């Protein structure tokens, strides 16, 4: 996993309190990791803080899986 992916994974594990092996790139926050809509908002805010970027609402709506977040953040910080 890339550096960005590792940092994303860490945030997800910490925030959702899920096992590390569940946090794959394909894992959906809501379907697979048990997040609710508030969790997804909190995750987006945590990503913004960690990576020092702003994630607009329309972009946030497209971030459904761990991989989506990694892809967005690699692009935004790269």
């Amino acid at each position, binding site marked *: 996993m890339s550096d960005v992916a590792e940092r994303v994974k860490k945030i997800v594990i910490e925030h959702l309190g899920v096992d590390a092996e569940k946090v794959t790139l394909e894992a959906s926050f809501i379907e697979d990791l048990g997040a*609710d809509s*508030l969790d997804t908002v*909190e995750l987006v*805010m945590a990503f913004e803080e960690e990576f020092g970027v702003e994630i607009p609402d329309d972009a946030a709506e497209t971030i459904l899986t761990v991989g989506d977040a990694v892809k967005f953040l690699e692009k935004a910080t790269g």
Partner: protein
Amino acid sequence: MFDLTGLSALVTGASGGIGGAIAKALHAHGATVVISGTRQAPLDELAASLGERVHIATANLSDRAAVDGLLQTAEGQTGGIDILVNNAGITRDGLFMRMKDEDWDQVIEVNLTSGFRLTRAALKGMMKRRFGRIIGITSVVGVTGNAGQGNYAAAKAGMIGMTKALAQEVATRNITANCVAPGFIETAMTDALNEKQREAALAQVPAGRLGTGEEIAAACVYLASREAAYVTGQTLHVNGGMAMI
């Protein structure tokens, strides 16, 4: 009965009568309090009377940058705000047909928008800690209306609606949002009434007297307590029976 030890509260408008009483009561029940207001002298006096577990954060809530700064300051002073009491309020009374845009705007800004912005900022930490108590000091006129207070009634009713929406959003995180709605309370504002006005006001109150800041504060202590975890989205009316709603 209610123990707020270990919790930190931010009370806006604490240089006023009701805000000061709320800060005192939360403090007496063990909370660390940050008292905010525009006037330094009454805050200094209040802080001196409370002794320990008190911080002062002056802020003018009509200034948005100051509102943002206030929450940051308060969190820095305490490590995190668990109880937010949006109490600050102003009046710019006038009959509807003569009400100026700026009187409308100022009242909405200070009485409603600043509460929204402080609450939004405070939620971040509350969500993380999975605990929070948001208390809005609204007014009986937010429910009943009052001639000459179109702006004030709108802001106070707005606070009640905002609180209900918020309560639904954050209930799963052990964060409650409620309002306390005072009726006629003894403050500098009611002291200014003449005898005739006072009598007319009291005629509407079954209890036959004005309420006190301490009676408003007691309602806040309850809503701030751990025991009130299952009470959310409510408006607690403290008005001597003036309006039963």
